């Protein structure tokens, strides 16, 4: 099987290699990919949308349907992880143990019992919990806010510099995941619970969809942001620019939430207890 696979793969690679001589040269401005639709985008983006970053304009305006469904794909990937691991996967252990710090007593709490999770008097005890390292903990505590700030900048400044909803959302999600790795899963779910990450993920997709539907209500086509120009203080071109910003914020929220949601489920094998 291994040798057969190797032979098949080498034949496939040789075929691709022989075809590569027919393909346009690297950096050829007259290649087919660069001569049909893309000149239109480059020359008309500024007058259509007043957004200097052509990539952002194409992403959220010219190819708005594509991006809408890509966001939906990301959200459904988060849902798939949730159903695979959380619903049908391993269950959290039935009983939990807590130490009452002032007296030193150990409490055993069955499922359904009151869980003194938030209290400072009780400390959770379990076998997989690992104390986090002070140096790593402090470094990440210093770094995480700046990463988050940079992510917000990337989302908000996506019109004028490289950036946008997807990139900023991934950076923000990475900052939250860094926090979860450096501290522990429990303290990060206390800040952004699984429920709210799922709600934020669907909320982000709904912002995108709602913007499209609002355009219909205001008398333009689905995702045709120039319809927003009936709102005070907007002409059709700046309405498109603002519509793109709203949509990018929706994408950023959805991507952030889904990245964190997938991490929660993968890292703990669906139990939302401490893992990794």
């Amino acid at each position, binding site marked *: 099987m291994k040798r057969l696979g190797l032979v098949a793969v080498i034949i496939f690679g040789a075929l691709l290699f022989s075809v590569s*001589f027919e393909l346009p040269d690297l*950096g050829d401005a007259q290649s087919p990919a660069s001569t049909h639709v893309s000149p239109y985008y480059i020359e008309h983006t*500024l007058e259509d949308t007043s957004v200097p970053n052509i*990539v952002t304009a*194409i992403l959220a305006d010219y190819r708005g349907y594509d991006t809408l469904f890509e966001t939906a794909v990301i959200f459904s990937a988060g849902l798939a992880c949730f159903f695979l691991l959380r619903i049908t996967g391993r269950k959290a252990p039935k009983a939990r143990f807590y130490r009452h710090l002032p007296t030193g007593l150990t409490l055993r709490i069955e499922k359904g019992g009151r869980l003194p999770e938030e209290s400072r008097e009780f400390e959770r005890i379990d076998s997989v919990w690992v104390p986090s390292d002070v140096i790593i903990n402090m470094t990440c505590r210093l770094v995480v806010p700046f990463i988050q700030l940079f992510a917000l900048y990337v989302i908000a400044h996506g019109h004028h510099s490289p950036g946008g909803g997807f990139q900023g959302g991934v950076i923000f999600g990475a900052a939250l995941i860094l926090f979860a790795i450096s501290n522990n899963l429990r303290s990060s779910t206390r800040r952004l619970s699984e429920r709210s990450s799922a709600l934020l993920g669907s909320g982000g997709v709904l912002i995108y969809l709602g913007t499209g539907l609002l355009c219909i209500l205001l008398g333009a086509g689905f995702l045709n942001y120039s319809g927003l120009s009936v709102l005070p203080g907007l002409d059709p071109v700046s309405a498109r620019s603002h519509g793109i910003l709203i949509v990018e914020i929706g994408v950023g929220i959805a991507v952030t939430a889904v990245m964190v949601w*997938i991490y929660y489920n993968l890292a703990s094998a669906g139990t939302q207890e401490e893992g990794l």
Partner: protein
Amino acid sequence: METVGALIIAKYNYWAVVVLIVIGLYAMIAKKNLVKKIIGMNIFQTAIILFYVSIGAKRGATLPIIEHAHGHGGHAVQAADYINPLPHVLMLTAIVVSVATLGVALALAMRIYFHYGTLEEDEIQKKIIGNEPAPGDGTG
């Protein structure tokens, strides 16, 4: 000799993509471990992303953000001055989607591990054919 050099400069991006595609495909076909198959799939995806991005390049052009867009108005935008933005848009979403699908693939691998106790393909097959009672959905 000069023509060979020119040929290498004109086509090396495709050759790099071919090498990555072959590595990824071989890992998906020949490796028995499911996680290694997933890694192969990711290498394959990376090759496709590189392919698209290298298609968008134009010699002598800059990145697709219009310079002096506001304030200096009046000058026409030339398509030859900016690289092709379309492949970048397509790959931007593809990168994030590939991360999300990687999460789904790892979740599936995790379920398989809980059910069969192994990630090796041949051992899983042996357990399915031998009709051994599965060790259950491990609860601990």
